[in-house]
């Protein structure tokens, strides 16, 4: 039988708020255990939550960016279960009346087709703390620094039909929340995690099969592996005439497999009910309009502008816009640059990306300012240096405190555009390479490159290559 895979994703995005969603404690990652938790995060007797408005604004931003409806009235609910890293014995989340519902986004499939993926809802909630089971022998430890961290849970419709599509969707959401500056999207730090609901159904069958939920996957590679493993597992069961059990499964990235965590029968009854400590959130239309009018340019718009207004090649525009920080770096460089933006784009995609990849750093950690890059390209454009020299200077900029112009001056790297000086070198080169000169004069024009190379060598690459070329041809033609 031919099986169709049906996947729905629940993505937990940690919102980039300075303080927790219901307390004023800091959300800074990586601090000493249990130092970032206030009495509210610790669930002390008598304390009460107070909603962080910034988190609400961020949720609205997201909702608007995915064409969703923003609820004028939304409600926080308590999700009740016991676990030592859940201090209150309940998580404050949203159940009925989430803040965002009914959105959509488009993923671009390999064949170029745009596929619409529905977003069922996105709701605000607090994160739990962390249980640490492997650090102390015979005992578990609790770190509540993460408790109360604001999360936006984004739930997709079950409309993804392969691991590949799931990743495309996830990447799109990841890109979007970074564009909106509502999350740093840092997957290593757990700022972007995913649960996948996976089921199979016979092709053309409208009814969905029984699903398994794979919990807490925090990398694109793991989600691909986990879904592929799960699809194979379910296929095997179904083809042997068995039935899939509705359950929650964990992905073991070391073993590369999913394992049963709890079945439906063992599942918690969360006993959701509206949290009486928090008033319903009323969102004024005016606030929505204000946020809508201040939404940043998003990926598709950016690519479009790069292509149409800046005349950058589509493939390059996409490459730069893919990462909002890179795009911002590019635009910063562009601000102080008077030349062809494509040249700047080329430099970014080749030279800048090469350093980022080699040193495994992100653009924010690159010790070269956007202004330096624009200056460098400017110097190529105005003929001060050659692009070969520019590469040399670029690599020096990483270490050096000096500006582009200072480096050029200090090391005497200005391009030689003095005709007399170049003509002298050409004459010397032609004298030293009589054989190649004769070959050229006999009609073998390919050796021109060799001769020019010799000139560049003699000038340590400083000669203006175009000028060398012109003069060489001229001198040879006089022979």
């Amino acid at each position, binding site marked *: 039988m031919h099986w169709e895979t049906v996947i729905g994703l629940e993505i937990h995005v940690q919102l980039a708020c300075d303080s927790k969603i219901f307390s004023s404690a800091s959300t800074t990652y990586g601090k000493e255990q249990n130092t970032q938790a206030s*009495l509210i995060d*610790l*669930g*002390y*007797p*008598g*304390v*009460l*939550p*107070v*909603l962080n408005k910034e988190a609400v604004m961020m949720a609205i931003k997201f909702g608007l960016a995915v064409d969703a409806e923003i609820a004028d009235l939304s409600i926080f609910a*308590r999700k*009740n279960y*016991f676990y*030592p890293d859940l*201090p*209150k*014995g*309940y998580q404050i989340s949203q159940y009925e009346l989430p803040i965002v519902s009914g959105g959509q986004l488009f993923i671009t499939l390999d064949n170029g087709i745009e596929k619409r993926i529905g977003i069922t809802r996105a709701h605000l909630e607090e994160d739990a703390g962390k249980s640490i089971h492997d650090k102390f022998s015979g005992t578990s430890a*609790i770190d509540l620094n993460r408790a109360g961290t604001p999360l936006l849970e984004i739930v997709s419709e079950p409309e993804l039909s392969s691991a590949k599509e799931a990743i495309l969707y996830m990447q799109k959401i990841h890109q979007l929340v970074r564009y909106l500056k509502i999350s740093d999207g840092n997957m290593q730090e757990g700022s972007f995690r995913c649960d996948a609901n996976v089921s199979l159904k016979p092709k053309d069958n409208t009814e969905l099969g029984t699903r398994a939920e794979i919990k807490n996957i925090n990398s694109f590679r793991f989600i691909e592996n986990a879904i592929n493993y799960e699809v194979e597992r379910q296929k095997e069961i179904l083809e042997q005439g068995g039935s899939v059990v509705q359950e929650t499964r964990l992905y073991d990235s070391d073993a590369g497999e999913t394992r049963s965590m709890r079945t439906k029968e063992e599942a918690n*009854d969360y*006993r*959701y*009910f509206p949290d*009486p*400590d*928090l*008033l319903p959130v009323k969102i004024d239309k005016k606030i929505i309009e204000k946020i809508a009018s201040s939404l940043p340019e998003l990926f598709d718009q950016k690519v479009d502008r790069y292509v149409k207004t800046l005349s950058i090649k589509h493939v390059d525009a996409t490459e730069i816009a893919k990462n909002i920080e890179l795009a911002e770096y590019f635009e910063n460089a562009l601000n102080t640059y008077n030349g062809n933006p494509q040249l700047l784009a080329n430099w970014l995609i080749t030279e800048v990306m090469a350093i980022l990849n080699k040193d495994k750093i992100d653009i924010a950690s690159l010790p070269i300012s956007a202004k330096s890059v624009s200056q460098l390209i400017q110097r190529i454009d105005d003929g001060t240096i050659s692009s070969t020299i520019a590469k040399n200077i670029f690599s020096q900029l990483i270490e050096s405190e000096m500006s582009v112009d200072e480096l050029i001056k200090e090391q005497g790297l200005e391009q030689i555009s003095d005709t007399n000086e170049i003509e002298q070198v050409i004459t010397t080169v032609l004298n030293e390479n009589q054989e190649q000169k004769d070959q050229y004069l006999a009609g073998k024009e390919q050796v021109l490159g060799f001769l020019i190379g010799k000139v560049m060598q003699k000038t340590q690459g400083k000669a203006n290559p175009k000028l060398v070329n012109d003069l060489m041809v001229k001198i040879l033609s006089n022979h």
Partner: protein
Amino acid sequence: MERFTVKAIQNMLSDKQISAAELFDLYSSRIADYDQSLNAFITTDIQPNAAYMSDDQDQESPIDSALTGIPYAAKDIFCTQGIKTTCGSKMLENFIPPYDATVVRRLKKQGAVLLGKTNMDEFAMGSSNETSYFGSVHNPWDIERTPGGSSGGSAAAVAAGLAPIALGTDTGGSIRQPAAFTGITGLKPTYGRCSRYGMVAFASSLDQAGILALSAEDTAIFLESMAGFDPLDSTSVEEPVPQYSQYLEENIKGKIIGLPKEFFDGSLGSAYEALIAESIDNYKKLGIVFKEISLPNIGYSVPTYYVVAPAECSSNLARYDGVRFGYRSQNIEDLDQFYRTNRQIGFGQEVKRRIITGTYVLSTGYYDAYYLKAQKVRQLINQDFARAFESVDIILGPTTQTAAFKLGEKIDDPVSMYMNDIYTISANLAGLPAISHPIGFVEDLPYGLQLIAPHFKELNLLNLTHQYQKVTDWHQAMPRLLKSSEDND
């Protein structure tokens, strides 16, 4: 022994008849002398705030407010920084909060002096003070009887003169019923009037801090210092706080009181009915007009309450797991056993009963039939009141079914115990302010009368009660017990 009102103490302090330190000592020694028979206090070994305790009468007090140097007691449900806050439970037997509840902080800031933490039903769940882990409180009018609950310790302390005034909380009648049972004045303000921050939660949508006092005037003096919006409590309301004590003499002539026929269906004893009739006459003499009204859904108050309150309690009390604070059993093998043992030993029977009830009504398959239904009925009860207040200023009714009953009489019959709150619960469900004030005695036991006002109209309640107390002296009657012990001195 004389019971001093807050008003009287203010005068004594300003006339320098007594110092704040002497007052503190006076009440401390009263507690030491008399509380053995009442058990009204759980914690009394409190260091008074030195700033307000200077014996040097010439030295200017650092704070000059109406409350500077006024001693008060607080129900042990209010978190007090550095002072044990047990909530009447073994679970919190050794819990010392690192912070003050907002109302406590506000009183402290104005110079009020905490005398002690009063006994209460465990987590405020009970109507007789018998569910306290620290033993029952005894009613100063008859030590074989309950002072009511859950703010029984506060009521007994004020009635017996062991504190001039006390804080309580009222979730279903926990201030008004004990006030009635001990012959004092008890106010539950509007939901949202006083901050709940630092009040150990029982049922969050119903809990409200209030006052047990000897008079409406004292109540007004404290309320104006406690009330008001608190950014730490999202359910507190940004509504201006009147200087209640300045408006107590306002004319009440022509005010209309509604008498809900559902409150007077013949189920009260004739003696209590006679007292109410007499108090209605008193109010008529003060120029009040009476009108019969109907609150058709009021009969559903008790069942509605016993769905909503346990539901919220089951969730509110989930944090008592022994992980971060509270009772923690040793030598436990696994997590489930850890939770079970801590909660089994840490909580008493009534608390467990309500947690289980609440867990049940929120469960999948029962939520709609119980919790959701109860919320709808709650809306109907709200609407009943809203409609009634279109034509009346105040609603009058009994506070309790009877006078204080004997300790042990109802503790094994939860339903009969729950019915105790039949007249008080509706004000909590609708979030309305309500007061109970004394109206007389039957067989030497005090009875109270309840007045309910529209939201944020506490002033109407205090205004009426104050004028009633100017023409009657029931609120000045002192418990026999302490009088006789004084006579023996």
